[in-house]
Structures are given as structure tokens and as C-alpha cells.
């Protein structure tokens, strides 16, 4: 940034800087406060949760809230991991193979198919959820994990992201490999994929985050208690009559922890995904 010291009096510049820091601190506080509240309330008794002023460190820390989740939540957590990992793995597979066909192979109709993928990104899920539901029901897949996995594993957005990255890999690498007699499958798996670790990491993380957090799709396709995912289990609290906030906060904490860990470990790739979709698009 260009400093504007010369055009402004130092006092005004200093004051502006103070306002900037105050805004940053205020908003960071507004963001962290609810999150800290989730953590601390998870370990509080129901009575202490509602006591005011709020104590951030629980007076009588208890695991009671987590014990209240023991009946159903281990199942939900398992289901969520199973579904999220399956979808993420399949998305990486389908997006990279299709990305390869769209970026590195020459065939008639390539531009049209790419356009189909791109324009479908702009269409909200709610627009086509009803016919998709009818298809799943006719395949007798309603209320199965397979239904969730099938409808979610084909990602137009991911294909777009990967294809854009593959376009930056020079065609000469592929031509050189071909001259040496390599097949396309070999080129894809041994040359293109190893060069594409950043975009694969980005896709993996974005897709894990998305499907770990997804409520809507699971709400449509899963009805049995033993097949529910973590967000669905959390949503069950909403329709219960006796609302206890302790177990709700404990369950929310469980839902938040994996993505926060992911965020801390791989923030770079998440930001790249956001920016990559934004700027190159």
C-alpha cells in the first residue's frame, strides 16, 4: 500500500488508524464471543448457562452434557464421517477425470459440455431437488446413505475448479509423454495428478467442509434415526419439547471441532479455493 503520510496531517492519520484497530477488535470480538460461548456452555450446568453475567470458565465444569449425547450421537458422528469421506473421495475422482477430459483432451463438443457444467453451478439446489428426489425414489434409494453419496459426488463446481487448474499445466508435458509412448491414463495419474496437489487439496477441503456441514440434502433423503448425520441430529433438538441448551451446545461443539482443525491446518487451501473460484471465474 502507498502511505499517505504526505497528504494528511499525522494526527488525523493516527486517529484513522485507531478507528481501524477498534473496528477490527470489535468485529473479532463479535465473532469469537458466540464461539467461546459454545465451548464454555458445553461444560456448564443448565443453571449456570443462563446465569448473568456470563462466566467464560465454568464454575462447576461438568461432562453431563456430553453424557446426554451418548445414546445417539456416536452413531451420527460415524455416519457423518462415513458419508463426508465417501463424497469427498468420489468428488476428487470424478472432478479430476472430467477435468482432464475437459482440459487436456481434444474432442468435438468439449466447449458445450464445459458450458453445461458451468451454468449448472449458478442454479440453486432447491430448483432441482424435487425431480432429483423422484429419481432417487424410483431407484429405491430413499432413506439410504447411498442416495446422499450418489447425488452429491458429481460436482460441477469442483470439475470447474480442477479444469481451470489443469489448463495451466503446459500441453508440452503431455505431448512429450505421448511421444514416449505413454497412455492417457498414465499421463493423468503419473504426471497431471502429482502436479495438481494444490487444487486437489483445495477441492478435498472445500468438499469435506461442505458435506460435513450439509443439512438440506440429508434432511431430504434421510429419515431413519440410525442413518442420520450430525447436522440432522443437531436439528432434532429444534423440534423437541424440553429444550436443554447444555447438550445442544455440546453437540454444536462436536460439529464445529473437525472443521476448525481443518481450517487451522489448511487455511491456505481454503482461501485458495475461495479466491480461485472468484478471480479466475
Amino acid at each position: 500500500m502507498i502511505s499517505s503520510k504526505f497528504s494528511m496531517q499525522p494526527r488525523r492519520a493516527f486517529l484513522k488508524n485507531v478507528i481501524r484497530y477498534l473496528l477490527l477488535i470489535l468485529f473479532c470480538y463479535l465473532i469469537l464471543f458466540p464461539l467461546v460461548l459454545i465451548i464454555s456452555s458445553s461444560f456448564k450446568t443448565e443453571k449456570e448457562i443462563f446465569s448473568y453475567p456470563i462466566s467464560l470458565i465454568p464454575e462447576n465444569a461438568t461432562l453431563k452434557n456430553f453424557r446426554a449425547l451418548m445414546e445417539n450421537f456416536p452413531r451420527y458422528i460415524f455416519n457423518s464421517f462415513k458419508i463426508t469421506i465417501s463424497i469427498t473421495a468420489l468428488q476428487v475422482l470424478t472432478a479430476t477425470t472430467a477435468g482432464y477430459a475437459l482440459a487436456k483432451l481434444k474432442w468435438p463438443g468439449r466447449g458445450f459440455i464445459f458450458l453445461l457444467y458451468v451454468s449448472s453451478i449458478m442454479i440453486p439446489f432447491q430448483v432441482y431437488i424435487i425431480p432429483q428426489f423422484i429419481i432417487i425414489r424410483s431407484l429405491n434409494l430413499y432413506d439410504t446413505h447411498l442416495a446422499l453419496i450418489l447425488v452429491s459426488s458429481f460436482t460441477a463446481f469442483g470439475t470447474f475448479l480442477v479444469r481451470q487448474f489443469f489448463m495451466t499445466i503446459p500441453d508440452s508435458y503431455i505431448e512429450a509423454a505421448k511421444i514416449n509412448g505413454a497412455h492417457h491414463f498414465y499421463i493423468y495419474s503419473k504426471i497431471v495428478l502429482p502436479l495438481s496437489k494444490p487444487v486437489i487439496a483445495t477441492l478435498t477441503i472445500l468438499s469435506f467442509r461442505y458435506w460435513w456441514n450439509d443439512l438440506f440434502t440429508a434432511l431430504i433423503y434421510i429419515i431413519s434415526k440410525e442413518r442420520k448425520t450430525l447436522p440432522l441430529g443437531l436439528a432434532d433438538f429444534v423440534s423437541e419439547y424440553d429444550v436443554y441448551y447444555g447438550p445442544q451446545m455440546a453437540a454444536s461443539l462436536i460439529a464445529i471441532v473437525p472443521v476448525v482443525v481443518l481450517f487451522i491446518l489448511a487455511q491456505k487451501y481454503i482461501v485458495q479455493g475461495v479466491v480461485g473460484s472468484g478471480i479466475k471465474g
Partner: protein
Amino acid sequence: MKRPQQLNNEINTAILFLLPSFAGFVLFILIPILSSFLVSFTNYSGSFAKIQFVGFRNYELIFSNTKFWKSIYVTLIFVASSVVFQLFLGFCFALILNRKIFGKVIFRSILFLPVVLSSVAVCMAFLFLFHPTAGPVNNFLMSLNLEPVPWLAHKDTALMSIIIVFVWQSFGYYMIIFLSGLQTINPALYEVADIDGASEFQKLVKVTIPGLSPVIFFSMIIALINAFKMFDHVFIMTGGQYGGGPADSTRVLAFDIYQNGFLFWQIGYGAAESVVLFLIILAITVIQYRFQRSWVSYDIV
């Protein structure tokens, strides 16, 4: 020139590579999108045996239903205000963080953090924070001798509360996009402006905003689509599947489609609503593309 044999091989390979993705894409995304229109002209309610084409009947029902118009109204208020606040906050914090700021990385990470979190869990936390009688927010207001606000429990404040939570969770996304956009603006332009004696405000209006305009335009489209999709917040914070807020004050179209299609089994009716949703988004996007020529500049280097 390639020999035909070689070209054929390339096409076969392409089909093989495309197939895993394209088969699923066609079956679960493309066909559903196209048949949305088809279903909306039927009285389908779960059984193919009784299905009939009913022409524009569902659309007549929709347009004569006051609940639908209320839902359109709620949706538009929600989309307009959340997009404005998200982009405004995202833009402001991008400008702030684009300067020499001590602890920049930490500030940026914290502001972006809510984007990755489960909106269900976030809504649970706000359900507690906004509790009308014993919630921390109202306790805080009362300690300042201010009137407590009914938040999610009253028809006049429920939608506002949802907008607050939605913006809280997502403005960091646009901040990140704007931040990387700001870094593409040529610093020489600011130097020239400095030499000309331009004020901070003039630099913002004459250099930063035009330079960022393609990114702002893109963000507007993304933010609009995301706002039209919003469902979790209404579901979790205003009453679950039979909800929609006090006096339907938070019944956005996405939620109404869900209820009609999957709870009341008026599938044809719900499909007609989803076609309307699609047309609204399409119309807004087309208008934006037309309108962009007047304010988006791609030629600033």
C-alpha cells in the same frame, strides 16, 4: 494433421475420462434441472399411477396464494439486505486489512473463520444468544437500561435476526475475495493519484472501486445466489420443519418449496415454485449482466 484413427482414439479416451462424472451429472443434476419444468405442469404427489398433466394449474394456484406472495416478499427483503451488508462489511474489512496492520493474519483468520463452520451449530448458538427472556444479548441490553428485543420470537424482528446471523457467518467470504482483488490493482495508479494530490476518498472512488469492479460484480452474483439458497437458518432458528417464523415472517421461498414438496407432498406445486425461483434468479442475473457495462471496468491495468 491427425489421422482419423488417432482422433478416434482421443475421443474414446475422452469419453472414458468424462464418463464417471458426466453420467452422475446428467442423472442427478442435468435431468432434474430440465424436468423441474415438466413436474411443475403435473399434479404429481408421490405416485406415478395417478399422475396427470394439469397445464398451468399449479402456477395459477401459486399466483393466487397470498402465502406465496408473502414468501416472495420475505425472500426479496432477505436477499437484498443480506447481500448489501455482506458486501459492505466484506469491502470495509478488505480495505482495512489491505494496509499495514499489526496482526493482520490473525485478524483475517478470525473474520473468515465463521465461513467454514456448520451453519446448524452456529444457529444453535444464536438461538441461545437471542433467547427472548434469558439470553445473553437481552441481558446485556437490559444491563445498559435498554429495552430487550424479542429477536426470533416476534414477527417484526425474526427476519432481521436471521439476516444478522447470516451476515455474521458469511461476510468474511467476500472479504477474502475483495482482499485478493485489491492486490491485483496496479500500485502505480495510487502513485499517480498521490502526485495529483488526490484525497483518500477520491482514491477510493476513482481507483479502488473501478479497479475492483469486476470482483464486486462477481461477488454480487455469488452473494445473490447464496442468499436465495438460504435454508438452514430459517429451519433451525424459526421452528424446524413446520416453522417459517412467527406469522410466516421468515418463510423464504427455499423453505416454502421444501415444505410444499417434502412435507405436504404437493410436489407439482413445489416444482412450480422452484421454477419461479429459477426464473427470478435468471432475471436478476441477466439484468446484472446488462447493467454491468455502466459500472464494471475490465480495462484498468
